[in-house]
């Protein structure tokens, strides 16, 4: 049996889609050299993947750099590798990353699968920050690792996120802006240098992220192990 697979390349175009219909997922993607990202499509019982889904790739500044339509010729899960479609994305924070919007007919689900040199993660949906929902996360500032947070703006307006660190009796904060439909990655050692660069020993801390302006922002945390100069390893995506 030949499985029908359809890809239609489309040039970058003005965003006109309504994100509120059908089944829409907002995911963070990251390409070489940090990660490889795949999107996995799967359908509910009785649903089919025959109908095309739209995969829109926005770079870190929120510009639409590629948009394709994907269909799978049977009802089984399908895997879509993003690497060939992300060459137009600019580097931001040392990584080629951005915002991925996947829209499918109702009953079709998506998840992203991120793989690095050593590890792999699956992600159905990022943790959301908005006016009603805050996020906290434990961190470890240590000489052998750096902590990063990736923020993805799901909406067409600039989002503002406040990140506050709790460590001992101090709680410094930083205000971050994420472009409309874009993404940003922040090194927490840089945001909070008093913890990141002067510690000889590991220091446990928490960060708390809140948003007062703008819509929902997806959030992922990751660590980079500084094992050797030429073999940084990303791990612990949550």
């Amino acid at each position, binding site marked *: 049996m030949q499985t029908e697979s359809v890809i239609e390349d489309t040039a970058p175009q003005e965003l006109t889609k309504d994100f509120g219909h059908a089944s829409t997922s907002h995911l963070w993607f990251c390409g070489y050299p940090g990660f490889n990202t795949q999107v996995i499509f799967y*359908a509910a019982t009785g649903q089919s993947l025959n109908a095309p889904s739209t995969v829109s790739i926005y770079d870190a500044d929120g510009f639409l750099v590629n948009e394709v339509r*994907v269909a799978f010729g049977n009802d*089984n899960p399908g895997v879509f590798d993003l690497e060939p479609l992300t060459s137009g994305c600019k580097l931001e924070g040392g990584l080629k990353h951005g915002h991925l919007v996947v829209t499918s007919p109702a009953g079709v689900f998506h998840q992203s699968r991120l793989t690095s040199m050593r590890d792999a993660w699956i992600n159905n949906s990022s*943790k959301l920050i908005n006016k009603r929902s805050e*996020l*906290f996360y434990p961190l470890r500032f240590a000489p052998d690792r750096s902590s990063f947070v990736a923020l993805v703006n799901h909406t067409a307006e600039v989002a503002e996120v406040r990140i506050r660190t709790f460590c001992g009796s101090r709680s410094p904060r930083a205000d971050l802006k994420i472009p409309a439909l874009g993404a940003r990655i922040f090194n927490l050692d840089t945001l909070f240098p008093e913890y990141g660069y002067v510690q000889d020993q590991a220091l446990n801390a928490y960060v708390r992220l809140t948003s007062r302006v703008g819509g929902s922002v997806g959030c992922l945390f990751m660590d980079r192990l500084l094992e050797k100069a030429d073999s940084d390893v990303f791990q612990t995506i949550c």
Partner: protein
Amino acid sequence: MTAETYTWRAFFICNDLTKPVVHFFPHSAGSAAPYAVNCTLAIFGGDLNARSVTLEGARLNQPDGIRLDAVFPELLQSSQGFIGLDVCLQSVQRRMDLTSSQIVIELVKGKQVLRYFAARVGSLTESKAEQFFPIVDCADAGTTIVAVNGAAAHSRVGYKKLGLPYNPTQSAATDTVDQSTHGLEGIDLAGLSIVELGANVVRSDAHNLISASGGVPSSTSIAHTPETFVNSQREHFGLQPLAPGVYSSIQESDAVTYYALVRDINTRTPISVHAL
């Protein structure tokens, strides 16, 4: 009248190398005051006797955490494999909604740290009563599903094999999923226990992909389906027609929470966990 209790159900691994830590962030939307919150930790499963400890001193909007082997010293003496954990938050203020609180489980193994957000019990909606999740095995990592039954009673865990990996030798007729022959299988998950549902992966040298056979660990009663698939890698412009692996859906109940667990293929070390 006592305040309502909110429960998160998770699992962890504790042995000589892996040390678990639980982090909790009591939070109530719209309330910024640091009200006192009681945090009760309960462990179950494995070869442990179920036990709970209540921690005092937690405050609303203030994150905190503690090593589990400091709370439960018996974890240092035995306990291999998965252990269940219930984290219950209760505010001293009546009618305080703590549903937006968050619990993070951290497993520390040397330099390697695995963290994940725990799932809240009772958060299921009717539309989410059946979850779909593909078990995908690739060259570097394999995925399994961990079911955690925190209730004292048995619970039926449904496990539906919905599709087969793409096989070019199959006919169109057999490639279509037949629900009558791929109906709901299941196991009776004993009370206060944890089970890992997943695929036994075998490396396929032909295409550097992983073939998979449906099945579960030997400690459970699900029948193995020993098909071995070699996926024909039909990549063009990044599109793969099918994920290698088995495809499952699970039926949820409030007693059981589910997690996707990704293991390193070679070492079987857990590398990421995601609440379903």
